[in-house]
């Protein structure tokens, strides 16, 4: 077996996986805080990428300004969605929550399609793309920057949840809403903040994907469905799980793309995460780090 090829696949997997990890983190934050399953996570990513694109290529802002404005709009979007759509549905049946996020994803996709069409739009080069040698293999600098951004963001998030007052309040809300309420925490505010953070984190994923691929189109929204195997593997309510799961699924996807695709003629890369999902559900339904809920029917 060609070691360079293997390493190349693993590195690609790590990069894509770190973006999965980011989006999955957003997903888990929402699930933990509000126990809503957000199937529109991929659309958050897409919308974030398009906002940033707009700022960069239409208004020619420097990257750091563009990304701040992207954060701002993503946060507003997340909070608006929570306030207008999810809050009226608190306490309703699970299928309503699943379906409402599916409806939301239809709307966001349609709006983007109305505004930008279905063609791939080139994404301005943010990071230098000249490859650097790591050992025997050339790695695009964009990849390194992407992994770096994800790492920084994860560290910031961890610090936020561990040390900031809001972060601790969010963890309290996740562990028990009633106790949190009686301690004077506004649960509604925490819900809104969760959605805002999830939208921001996903938008970073979108921008990074845009720079790596060099262009963005509607297919970015499929990322939201790719995240499901990740969160199942890591455990639905574990941020650490989302990160580890994201990297594992990313590597798995690229390895099956490299080794199984030539045998079956393509397609294995796309389907491998879902086969993993089914296997995990059968043998370890709460994932690697998920909280076990014992319930027998």
């Amino acid at each position, binding site marked *: 077996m060609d070691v360079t090829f293997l390493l190349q696949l693993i590195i690609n997997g790590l990069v894509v996986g770190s973006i999965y990890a980011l989006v999955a983190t957003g997903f888990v934050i929402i699930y933990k805080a509000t126990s809503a399953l957000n199937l529109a996570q991929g659309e958050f990513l897409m919308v974030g990428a398009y906002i940033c694109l707009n700022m960069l290529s239409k208004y020619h802002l420097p990257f750091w300004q563009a990304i701040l404005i992207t954060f701002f709009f993503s946060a507003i979007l997340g909070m608006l969605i929570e306030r207008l759509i999810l809050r009226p549905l608190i306490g309703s049946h699970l299928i309503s929550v699943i379906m409402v996020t599916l409806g939301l994803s239809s709307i966001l996709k349609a709006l983007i399609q109305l505004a930008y069409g279905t063609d791939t739009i080139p994404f301005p080069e943010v990071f230098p793309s000249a490859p650097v040698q790591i050992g025997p293999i050339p790695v695009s600098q964009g990849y390194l920057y992407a992994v770096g951004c994800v790492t920084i963001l994860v560290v910031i998030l961890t610090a936020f949840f561990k040390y900031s007052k809001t972060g601790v309040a969010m963890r309290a809300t996740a562990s028990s809403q009633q106790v949190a309420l009686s301690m004077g925490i506004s649960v509604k505010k925490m819900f809104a903040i969760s959605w805002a953070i999830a939208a921001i984190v996903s938008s970073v994923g979108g921008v990074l994907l845009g720079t790596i691929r060099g262009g963005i189109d509607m297919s970015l929204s499929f990322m939201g469905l790719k995240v499901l195997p990740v969160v199942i593997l890591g455990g639905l309510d574990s941020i650490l799980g989302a990160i580890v799961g994201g990297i594992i699924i990313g590597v798995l996807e690229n390895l099956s793309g490299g080794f199984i695709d030539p045998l079956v003629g393509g397609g294995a890369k796309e389907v491998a995460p*879902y086969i993993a999902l089914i296997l995990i559900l059968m043998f370890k339904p709460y994932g690697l780090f998920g909280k076990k809920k014992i319930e027998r029917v």
Partner: protein
Amino acid sequence: MRCGDFKTSYAADMTIFESGTARVMLGLFFCLLFSLPFFVPGYLLDIVNRIGIAVIGAIGLNILTGFTGQISLGNAAFMAIGAFSCGYLGTKFGLPFYLCIPLAGLITAFFGMFVGIPSLRIKGLYLAMATLAAHFIVEFVVVKWESVTGGVAGLTIATPKIGSFAIDSDARLFFLIFVIAIVAVLFAKNLFRTKVGKAFIAIRDQAISAEVMGVNILKYKLLSFGISSFYVGVAGALVAYQAKIISPETFPVSVAIDYLGMIIIGGLGSILGSIYGAIFITLLPELLRMGTSSLAGSFPGMVNHLAAMKELVFGLLVIIFLIFEPSGMAARWHSIKNYWKLYPFSH
């Protein structure tokens, strides 16, 4: 005069027709329905046929999701299994359509029950994800298993025939589809008057209590998956006959979402609701197309955005229904009917 909706016996509560008038109205509706092919032009009849298929599929999904409470995002995959097994049986073995359709249903029911096995262990959102994963796996198999499904090139479906009478026009297909659809509606309506149907509802409402009361959860969950998938498989087979050529792209994941939209907008856990939802969601793109083509003079770009407009309106409708009328059109219709029944003394 009537001053309310009171029932004094179990039989009265279980009856399908509340009054003789309802029977007559239904009879009139059938007369009107079956005269449609004689005066409705081909293109509109094609839409009517699609409504008929959607009714069968939506009832199937509602049996599983609305009545038994098992969320399935794999509806499109089950339809694909029905369509491709129907096509394969018809082209490779030369079976007539009246064997192909029920066999396609049975094959799909078998697959549905297979997917349903984990439902004893996993439920709720885990089941939703598992069925979604099943969708992508089925899609992959359909693309790759070229000897059976024809791969990406697709599968050409043999024209259904009775003797030498070919069911090749929209009008002839209409009778095939609607006879099956009416049988499907009647079966489903009666299913929920029996022990089996009531067991489904008990599982949805409170699985633990259902088990305590002697409902065998695994058996009835699997049965629900089986019956539901049989319906969906039959709908898929009819899609195959209508489309004449089917490929993996005929059944994308958006089809499954459309069907979920039908039962949400129509009404979860309501047979009538499935019918309303199927009609509404199937007509939606056609209504939008009419709307945009009439506006084409003033907004020439509108026609290009039809697909996006459909998605937008669909998403908005689903959200609006979930927030303001979670029981769907069926419940709204019921309350409107009751209002007028008691008019002017309704409160």
